[in-house]
């Protein structure tokens, strides 16, 4: 922990107009190594420290970062990136093509948690110090989108410190120390307690607010975090429990900033199960599309949004939210119609409903347990007999992977911000070799979508690609592969006057923040 002495020295050292930001989220990043953890908490913090070739602007559009330009090579053989000159790492080293090649080798190594980004990359070549070419086995139109979180490390620094490869299981120098090119440097790292970031004077860009020092602390209990914001001990908390937003808005000196996250919350079905795990009956009623549609019509999503989510979330029509690349405009939101639900159940041969299990998390998504409790009641109201069980996320994925579920709740945030992402992970038929469908717990399988997948992945022509995505999304909606519920809201609490930019990936981008002085 920081001593008072250094605190005093730092306070003296800060230039005029300097501002400190104290912020908290619920979970501390597991590592500071950009290749050892592929999760939102890790990238949310590291995006302030490390930079990629490309980055996302305030509206999630790609923009140049360490690469000033990029273009396809030939007819989809790969991508060529022109690097920015004059960029230095926090440690003073120059950023060149050598570092890109090194970062590629590091990020795509089997030891890395980010290797799937480079699955289709055949080889990478440095044409000169400031030009790098990526050759892919298939044309890959979204390659630049998929590497927005791929961060550049300095080759010399990593090798000197025995951190040439990431280590998830042992940890190494890069777990606790950073050397990026980004706007902030990590000056202090105490895992689980406190992380201090200080503005980097030598940053190449000037799109930066007035935060010169940012102190991050994880606060797990959201009621505690709200109390700390209200009492002035914190300047920014994320997330604010939805129910507390109104109270914070009314309080003096604090504000709530709302946005929409890229995460879609949905219900899954046991498509490929022979029998349901609950009820003890033979057969699987969910194989009948009418039963799945009945479930969709039984759920009063507007009511859930109105009460449980306090009006701060939007209904989802598909597995991604509007505004993301590949979103299909032609799909209407599901409608609440309990009579139709009962009728569909009767037509499918279940006029008296049937028993099935409904699994949910109780510590993963905003108000997940309350949403499921409400869904449980709504399903019961059309005559179904859900056996609802909620559990901590530590048990949840294991339960789903063990096929110990019928219906289940799932949230998905597309890492590439593209409609292809959820199709690949949640909709394509599970296949270990093609690495598709790895989160398709229900085993949904549609031949046409499987046929479309490789075509979508390699189509360079935007309208053609969109047409295929529209078709796939259409099939998903008609087949009721999932019940898309809503898009998770972003609710941040800030001290009055703190200006922030909320991006749908829910990253805390310090350089877009301004703190009242």
């Amino acid at each position: 922990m920081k001593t008072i002495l250094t605190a005093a020295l730092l306070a003296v050292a800060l230039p005029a107009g300097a501002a400190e930001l104290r912020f908290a989220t619920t979970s501390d990043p597991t590592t500071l190594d950009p290749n050892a953890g592929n999760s939102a908490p890790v990238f949310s913090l590291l995006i302030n420290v490390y930079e990629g070739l490309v980055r996302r602007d305030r509206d999630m559009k790609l923009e140049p970062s360490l690469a000033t330009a990029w273009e396809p090579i030939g007819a989809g053989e790969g991508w060529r990136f022109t690097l920015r000159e004059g960029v230095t790492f926090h440690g003073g080293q120059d950023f060149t093509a050598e570092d890109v090649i090194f970062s590629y080798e590091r990020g795509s190594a089997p030891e890395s948690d980010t290797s799937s980004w480079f699955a289709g990359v055949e080889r990478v070549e440095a044409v000169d110090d400031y030009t790098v070419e990526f050759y892919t086995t298939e044309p890959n139109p979204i390659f630049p989108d998929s590497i927005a979180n791929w961060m550049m490390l300095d080759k010399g620094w990593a090798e000197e410190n025995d951190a040439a490869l990431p280590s998830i299981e042992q940890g190494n120098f890069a777990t606790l120390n950073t050397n990026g090119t980004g706007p902030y440097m990590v000056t202090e790292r105490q895992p689980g307690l406190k992380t201090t970031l200080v503005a980097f004077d030598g940053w190449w860009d000037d799109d930066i607010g007035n935060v010169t020092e940012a102190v991050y602390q994880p606060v797990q209990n959201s009621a505690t975090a709200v109390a700390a914001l209200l009492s002035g001990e914190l300047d920014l908390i994320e997330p604010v429990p939805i129910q507390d937003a109104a109270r914070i808005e009314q309080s003096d000196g604090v504000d709530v900033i709302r946005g929409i996250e890229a995460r879609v919350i949905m219900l899954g079905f046991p498509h490929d199960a022979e029998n349901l795990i609950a009820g003890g009956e033979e057969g699987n009623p969910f194989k009948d599309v009418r039963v799945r549609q009945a479930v969709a019509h039984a759920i009063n999503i507007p009511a859930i949004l109105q009460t449980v989510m306090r009006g701060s979330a939007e209904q989802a029509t598909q597995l991604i939210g509007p505004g993301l690349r590949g979103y299909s405009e032609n799909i209407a939101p599901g409608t609440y119609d309990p009579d139709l639900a009962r009728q569909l159940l009767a037509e499918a041969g279940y006029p008296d409903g049937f028993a099935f299990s409904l699994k949910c998390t109780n510590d993963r998504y905003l108000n997940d347990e309350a949403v499921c409790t409400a869904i449980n009641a709504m399903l019961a109201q059309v005559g179904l007999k859900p056996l609802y069980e909620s559990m901590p996320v530590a048990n949840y994925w294991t339960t789903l992977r063990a096929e110990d579920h019928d219906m289940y709740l799932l949230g998905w945030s597309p890492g590439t911000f593209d409609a292809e992402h959820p199709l690949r992970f949640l909709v394509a038929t599970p296949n270990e070799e093609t690495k598709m469908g790895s989160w398709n717990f229900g085993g949904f399988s549609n031949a046409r979508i499987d046929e479309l997948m490789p075509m979508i992945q390699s189509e360079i022509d935007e309208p053609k690609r969109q047409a295929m995505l529209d078709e796939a999304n259409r099939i998903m909606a008609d087949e009721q592969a999932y019940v898309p519920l809503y898009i998770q809201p972003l609710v941040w609490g800030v001290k009055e006057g703190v200006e922030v930019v909320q991006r749908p990936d829910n990253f805390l981008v310090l350089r877009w923040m301004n703190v009242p002085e």
Partner: protein
Amino acid sequence: MLAYIIRRVFQSVIVLLAVGLVAFSMFRFVGDPIENLLGQERTVQDVERLREALGLNDPFAVQYARFLGRAVTGDFGISYRQSRPVSQIIAERAPATLELAFVSGVLALTVGIGLGVFTAIRRDGWAANIIMSVSLIGVSLPTFLIGILLIYLFGVQLRWLPTFGRGDVVDLGWWTTGFLTSSGLKSLILPSITLGLFQMTLIMRLVRSEMLEVLRQDYIRFARARGLSAKSVNFRHALKNTMVPVITVTGLQLGAIIAFAIITETVFQWPGVGLLFINAVQFVDIPVMAAYLMLISVMFVMINLLVDILYVWVDPRLRIDGRHT
């Protein structure tokens, strides 16, 4: 006596080994650490590689043997969540818990003894009766709720005290302390009340009943009859004689305070080993859970051993009987 101690130490080692075995046989039921360690874009190959690297494919007995082999050298492995040595993490977190436990213990002891003596002396007074009843409120509500209510009242409404964390701490090299800064001291107040409330009630009631008993004994009556002042009788004679059981129970409770500060630390985001343990459970951080349980067992076993030895030493009957407790 020496034979007794050796036998007990031997039994204690067996207990420790048993704790480890039970723990390791059951960790896989807590969840799968791989789910937390790898991101959503992981592949089956990634999962297999990591599983192998962490030794999770081995039978639990092998994992346990490996853990034991390293633990005897003081190496508790690498935390899954933090990717650094568990012993280092625990060393960092221990001061926070120990300071909190110390303040809670002192609070429980002083207030508990004070109120216990008062309620014993004024056995039938209205104030004593009120204190007796009101003190039960502290043990009739769940700790987390007491903590949240205290935060709400003193942190949010009145804004007198910090709502979370340890405040500024001073690093003494091998120990970090919150005792030397005003924010550190302020931060200690609410959590230590929350944590110490239960023990306070316990000690108060214990002192009261011991006092009541001692006050009825002949030598106290005799002291009174001799004309000694009430103050002298109450404190020099009566209270002194209640101290042995109070010290014993406090000793046992100190272990309990440290071991079970989990809830208080979670509510107040207190950076101690209890919070570390809860995080480890949520993350299925097996090395941290194992080390924590081992340390807690060592502590309990040692305290139990000391108390038992103390009993044998204090109560000669047990020695004559040769009965081992």
